[in-house]
């Protein structure tokens, strides 16, 4: 059981190739981190997995637990168990957080089945407590007027509520102060489970001090150029990404 990316190629609509053959397997129960300089294709990888229509997959496959997801729409992929925590979450004006999350949960139920409102709020409040979020938050419009930290916490809250099989966190640490980072990490760590695979995309080592990955991959110019254990992240922190240029050329 894994999220399996094999020799994935993807281009922009204008034909520019961004992913040039990415291969990566995230089995359930493991946390993988992808690090790499800006422009290496990390964020693109997360969007392509989620099914973003701005990219064209020109080769390779993505499978969830063995099933190819190429023909699945964005929402089908979501309901199949893929969750993407956005680097820049969108605002949804006028739609309260509570209603938004509820609609997402409702979309997962069979026709005719309704969410139990009491159980829903109980669950929602428990998770908000863990993320140290104020109760007033449920009535606020999704991400509207949120600080950077609030937005990221909201992403983690949604992730906790939807209980996906595979979580992809795109630059979740960016724009967070240390206290917010700790809270976010607490949420993510609470989600670690043998039933769930996680992929952390990050530019910095900092996040990995709080969420310990099982494996670290380095991405450069649209490929995974190096894989290793947690120690690889420290190496990068020490030496920077310069050595990658050689690796990429090699």
């Amino acid at each position, binding site marked *: 059981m894994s999220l399996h990316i094999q020799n994935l190629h993807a281009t922009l609509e204008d034909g520019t190739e961004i992913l040039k053959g990415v291969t990566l397997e995230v089995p359930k129960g493991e946390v993988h981190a992808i690090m790499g300089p800006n422009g290496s294709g990390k964020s693109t990888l997360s969007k392509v997995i989620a099914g*973003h229509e701005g990219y064209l997959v020109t080769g390779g496959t993505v499978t969830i637990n063995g099933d190819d997801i190429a023909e699945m729409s964005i*929402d089908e992929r979501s309901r199949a168990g893929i969750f993407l925590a*956005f680097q820049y979450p969108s605002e*949804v*004006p006028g*739609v309260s957080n509570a209603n938004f999350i509820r609609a997402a949960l409702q979309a997962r139920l069979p*026709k005719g089945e309704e969410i139990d409102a009491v159980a829903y709020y109980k669950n929602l409040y428990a998770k908000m407590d863990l993320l140290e979020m104020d109760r007033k938050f449920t009535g606020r*419009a999704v991400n509207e007027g949120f600080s950077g930290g609030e937005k990221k916490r909201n992403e983690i809250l949604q992730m906790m509520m939807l209980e996906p099989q595979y979580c992809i966190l795109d630059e979740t640490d960016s724009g967070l102060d240390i206290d917010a980072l700790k809270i976010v990490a607490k949420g993510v760590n609470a989600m670690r489970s043998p039933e769930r695979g996680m992929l952390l995309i990050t530019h910095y080592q900092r996040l990995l001090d709080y969420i310990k990955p099982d494996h670290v991959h380095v991405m450069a110019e649209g490929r995974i150029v190096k894989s290793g254990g947690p120690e690889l992240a420290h190496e990068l922190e020490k030496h920077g990404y310069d050595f990658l240029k050689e690796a990429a050329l090699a």
Partner: protein
Amino acid sequence: MSYEPTTAILDEETHEAINIDRTKGDFTFPERHKFDAGRGLSSKTVDYICDVKNDPQWVRDFRHKALKVFLDKPMPTNWATKDLENINFDEIRYYLSDGEKPKRSWDDVPPEVLETFERLGIPEQERAFLAGVEAQYDSEAAYSNMKEELTKQGVIFVNSTEGLKEYEQIFRPWFGKVIPTSDNKFSALNSAVFSGGSFIYIPKGVKLKQPLQAYFRINSESFGQFERTLIIADEGAEVMYMEGCTAPKFETATLHSAVVELVALKGAKIQYVTVQNWSSNVFNLVTKRGLAMEDAEVRWIDCNIGSRLTMKYPGVIMKGERARGEVISIALANTGQHQDTGAKMIHAANNTTSNVVSKSISVGEGRSTYRGQVHIPRHLKGCKNNTECDALLINSHSRTDTYPAITVRGNQHATQHEASVSQVSEDMLFYMQQRGLNEGQAMSLAVNGFINDLVREFPMEYSVELKRLIDLEMEGSVG
């Protein structure tokens, strides 16, 4: 391009839901009219209507004068859409009825008419939360009833024919005074051939806790419905009136042209709520205006989802000091529809306040237009107007136009005007879809978010219906 949903772009569940709803109002029964004025409009048509209705002479004179005004007035195509020229006045049938008086009990209503209103849920709503209901079928009301305690309090709730005959002393002084016959071509048309609609009088100090409702149903093809409503709230009285409407979708155009006059005397409050869901072959050309005396309040809460073309600019004349006027408006224009709506706020006394909040949504090739008029003359002081109009575009083919006309003379007033145009961005859609909502659900949620604060202004039972209608409209229009 058709906006009827196709199976190709929708999952089965959504498709099924849409099919159910689209047939809700889209059915018709065979006509069995005893009285039919035939096609086309002439002084003979007017006389036919007067004869059938047994109108008093003053009404006959009123109608004939109005017919002349209608024939003399040009179509307002110098500022309005050319689509108006597609109305063929010679093909329309101006009066259809079975010659029965409105029934006080649903048991006495003809079976097919009863079934019509049962299918639309009217008797059920009446039992649940209404103080009174009038149900109009083509030209005349088939049912009209009100809770007994209101009769005892002196409340009058009848159709316009009964109103002008039985209550002439109250009716006549205000009839045609808020909206003169010559106000526009369609108010003149209505004045010539009006039939049905409500006459309501709320005595001094009587405050209705539950709303009164009118439901307008068109059953016949090539028909014109011209109801006429006059509501008078005496000093300190309060009333909420709600209207709904549906028609089957015919191949030929249907015309609906109403005139609604509201009179709120000193300290009275009138709220007029409309959920307009005509089928997409209906020309809906309606004139609505209220008069607010000292400390009185008139609120128009207006939602337009249906029709081919709607032209409607509810207005308030604030004639007494401290009078308040308000228009809350939601318009949804899908492919094949043009919602041309707005508001008129005429300040005619000191310290009067008006508020206009308009939100329009254009989907596919739908078009929405906002026309606003705010008038504050120089000699007044302390008048306030707030106007907000926001437009949401769902894709690049849709269109929205805003024509605000704010005339403020003198410097002792406060006005503010805000307008915005926004789109449901691809980023927002991607975000929502990534959470598991399909495109239709995501669109519905975004649209509901856009109008959320206005939907709350509608009575609970209506706002639920409204949200559902909008959900279905959205789910049927993406792809």
